[in-house]
């Protein structure tokens, strides 16, 4: 382990659980404040989705209700199944030509808006990211069916772009009018001699984007993974799952892996290609960033090919170091371990230097974070490094396991909305299944702290007395600002300017406010500086005019 080289007394990058910023009683009081303005019916539902964290001696957190419907009329952060499928999981892959089957809106809104960066290596490396393709269904198509138009659109798209693969995404009306998008995809795949696959990711399919992640995982696993027989070169071959290259996060991680001699076979799906995802079965390890959106893929890759997975977190310099050590430990190679330690040592020093500068201006400031399905967890480590206190956090579309850890999966009630989403039957593929590690080896890794096949969830790492809120509403956000008076909020674009009108800065953790990368060591440094900029920006002191600060008309112009 690297020695602490900082002049600070405690290593700011050491991963320690934050002390409680509120007592459990105080947090319970805030919870009461959130619920009291609600009509009884809504209060009853929200009561189960707002939880004061309090872990028992086994590390179990209180149960939180998650992945259930948002009540109609409640202003929510959540989007739809299509957004999770096209926008999140499949969208970032540059060489799969993506066609939205439906009226124009959905394709338009998911066009270049998520900041998934991608870098084509050469002119032959297709990059369709700046294109939005849609069947733009019209009323006639709704009445008479849109399948013929879809088939024609796929042919037209093929003629223009000559892609290796085409993906089709269904929007709400498609499911209702009964277009068989899968038959169209099968037929066109045979006709054109390329991969064509469709996803029934109609917006109404689930309670949030989450259902769309699952549908996308299934489709990519079925139609893309394993379709490229060319084995990649490399000693330590890894797939990175649930990293979408927002603001260039994947680029920073690719840099680190390259430096360490780790071969990144593919990422699901930041800066990825159809070609690289096809090679995923050649990897010897899957590392999982966003557990929520991609855990299905990790499980299926393990079952079918024997590739173990574990959860990593590359947000924060401390967690990045810890995750890299886990990878080195998994491969058990002394050369890799040495390179890993040297890199951590080198790059942490730069992070510590910036922390020393900005931490005195940020220490003790308070944060609320309501975002995504993993980010509200990942970014807590960055705020801990800055000495800031997370008073409350929650996810937009996560499930109970993302809060409480995978140990609760057997207890999760499968409701009608989840039952909609197909769970693929996966079994070991006779030709290619090869467990990369024995059970004994995996047990040894677990014993030394590598979370093999596991994720402990957000609440396990949060202090008792923090308030955990699933699917926070606009109403609650307003109340929280009033009751907790935080110094910073983290959420998305829809919340940003609401919060800032209060005079409180908001950091977008979906799009990063056009900033980033925030992953890895360089990303951590970017984030430290960004939070310093936001929290200590001059503008927040300029909201009140001089005459508001000192309204008395005491001076006379004779005395000026």
């Amino acid at each position, binding site marked *: 382990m690297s020695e602490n080289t900082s002049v600070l007394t405690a290593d700011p990058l050491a991963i320690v659980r934050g002390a409680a910023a509120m007592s459990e009683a105080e947090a319970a009081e805030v919870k009461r404040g959130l619920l009291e303005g609600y009509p009884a019916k809504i209060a009853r539902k929200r009561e189960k989705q707002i939880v004061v964290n309090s872990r028992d001696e086994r590390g179990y957190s209180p149960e939180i209700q998650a992945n259930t419907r948002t009540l*109609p009329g409640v202003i*929510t952060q959540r989007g*739809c199944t299509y957004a999770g499928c096209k926008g999140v999981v499949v969208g970032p892959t540059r060489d799969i030509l993506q066609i939205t089957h439906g009226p124009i809106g*959905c394709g338009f*809104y998911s066009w270049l808006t998520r900041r998934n960066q991608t870098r084509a290596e050469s002119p032959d490396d297709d990059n369709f990211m700046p294109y939005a393709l849609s069947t733009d269904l019209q009323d006639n198509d709704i009445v008479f069916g849109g399948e013929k138009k879809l088939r024609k659109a796929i042919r037209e798209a093929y003629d223009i772009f000559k892609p290796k693969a085409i993906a089709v995404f269904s929007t*709400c009306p498609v499911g209702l009018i009964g277009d068989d998008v899968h038959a169209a995809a099968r037929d066109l795949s045979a006709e054109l001699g390329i991969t064509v696959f469709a996803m029934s990711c109609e*917006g109404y*399919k689930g309670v949030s984007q989450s259902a769309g992640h699952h549908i996308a995982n299934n489709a990519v696993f079925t139609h893309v993974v394993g379709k490229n027989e060319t084995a990649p070169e490399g000693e330590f071959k890894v797939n990175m799952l649930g990293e979408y290259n927002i603001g260039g996060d994947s680029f920073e991680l690719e840099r680190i892996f390259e430096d360490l001699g780790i071969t990144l076979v593919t990422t699901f799906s930041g800066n990825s290609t159809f070609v690289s995802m096809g090679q995923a079965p050649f990897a010897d390890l899957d590392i999982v960033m966003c557990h929520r959106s991609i855990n299905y893929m990790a499980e299926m890759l393990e079952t079918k090919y024997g590739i173990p997975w574990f959860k990593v977190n590359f947000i924060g310099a401390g967690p990045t170091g810890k995750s890299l050590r886990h990878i080195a430990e998994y491969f058990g190679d002394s050369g890799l371990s040495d390179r890993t330690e040297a890199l951590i040592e080198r790059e942490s020093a730069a992070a510590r230097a910036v922390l020393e500068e900005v931490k005195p201006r940020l220490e003790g400031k308070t944060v609320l974070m309501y975002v995504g399905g993993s980010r509200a967890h990942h970014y807590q480590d960055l705020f801990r490094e800055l000495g800031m206190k997370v008073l409350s956090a929650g996810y937009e579309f996560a499930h109970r396991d993302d809060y409480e850890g995978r140990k609760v999966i057997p207890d999760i009630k499968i409701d009608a909305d989840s039952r909609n989403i197909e769970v693929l039957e996966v079994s070991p593929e006779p030709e290619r299944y090869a467990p990369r590690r024995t059970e004994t080896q995996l047990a040894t890794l677990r014993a030394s702290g590598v979370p093999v096949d596991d994720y402990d969830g957000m609440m396990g790492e949060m202090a008792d007395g923090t308030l955990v809120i699933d699917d926070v509403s606009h109403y609650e956000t307003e109340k929280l600002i009033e009751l907790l008076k935080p110094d910073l909020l983290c959420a998305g674009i*829809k919340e940003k300017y609401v919060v800032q*009108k209060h005079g409180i800065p908001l950091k977008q953790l979906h799009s990063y406010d056009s900033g980033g990368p925030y992953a890895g060591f360089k990303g951590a440094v970017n984030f430290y500086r960004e939070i310093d900029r936001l929290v200590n920006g001059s503008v927040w002191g300029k909201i009140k005019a001089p005459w508001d600060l000192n309204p008395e008309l005491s001076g006379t112009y004779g005395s000026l």
Partner: protein
Amino acid sequence: MPTLPLLRHTGPETVAREALTINPAKTCQPIGALYAALGVHGCLPHSHGSQGCCAYHRSALTRHYKEPVMAATSSFTEGASVFGGQSNLLQAIATIFSLYDPEIIAVHTTCLSETIGDDIPQIIGKAEAEGKIPPGRYVMHASTPSYVGSHVTGFSSMTRAFVDYFAESTGRKSDSYAVFPGWVEPADMAELKRLFSEMGLRITMLPDTSGVLDAPLTGRYEMYPEGGTRLEDIRRMGDSAASFALGPLASGAAAKLLDTKCRVPTAILDLPIGLSATDRLVDTVRKVAGVSVPESIVRERGRLVDMMADMHQYTYGKTVALAGDPDQLCSLAEFLRDLDMKVKYVVTGTPGKSFETRLAELIGEPGPGDFRGAPGDLFALHQHLKAERTDLLIANTYGKYIARDEDIPYVRFGFPILDRVGHADFATAGYRGGLRLLEKILSALMDRIDRDAPNEKFELIL
């Protein structure tokens, strides 16, 4: 490795497409309905469909305005999609009034609820009968399936719906005028109000997003900001002496309904963007209201003509490609013609024959090599630009990919603008707006002259 073009799969050969839209020059109806409803004071827009529609529309408008954009959703799941959205909407109405206390809920439909066939007036009636709508509060609706028209017709339908639900005629005409501003920016609405006021008219503008989507940072968030058309003013619109509908596509339907419903005669005009279209508005107002044009407006006009004359050498003969919405494109094209520029390509995603007819009336039929795509998309526009470049591109933010690839001077205009500010704060409508638009065009053209001039031709004075 040299930088690859961004849109490198776009070639110069135009291929006929029947089924596939690539890089659309439009979006769907509900977002227009949402924008229009934000221009009514105390109104909360409500999207009757899946959560994603509402999330996408709020995000797009927020990115365009850098302002809070509030709307609620019926949060359809599969059950609602099978059994209909009635219970979702009833529940939403009750929830919204108890949590967010708006004066009006403006429901717009989506492709989902329209395909299911939800009967919104019946559901609103039921909500009323069940006491879910508090006294003095209202729920109204517009039908805006995404598979018809575009964002512009959604705006039009919601504006019309406000007239339909609320405008009343008492039988006594007032001396006030109704103004439908069309889908323009808050700054344009403020500028138009000033223009009418300068001419001595009392008006009610519907909708009016000034004071809503350009709100100040005060340290206090107002869910229902100061601005927006007041409900009592919408009611009184039925007694207006006359109405002015600016932009036939966005405003015509509301004005026509106000005429049939309340016998308010209307003048449907082009959007007052640029010199000639503003001239027609001012001249029509003068005649309809029987007022003379004040000296202040004569001076404003003169300043615009002055800049057009002073800088004529830089605009004369320059070719332009345009993408945007029909009402804007007609007036903009006419303004460019007034500047002796040549409008070579025009693309809008919004379908409708009347646009092409009006455009031809204003700037003539397309010449050889010209292209008018209605409906068309940015991919087609780009192919034409590859075949023959223009000197200028005017489009929304999505145009920046084309502008960079083809190295064309570029002015952002229209919806959405996601990467620059100012459009909500500085008008492009009216004579003063014309000055700003012209300044932007000239800056784009002259920056290019400076960039490309060899040392010996680099000039201090332009």
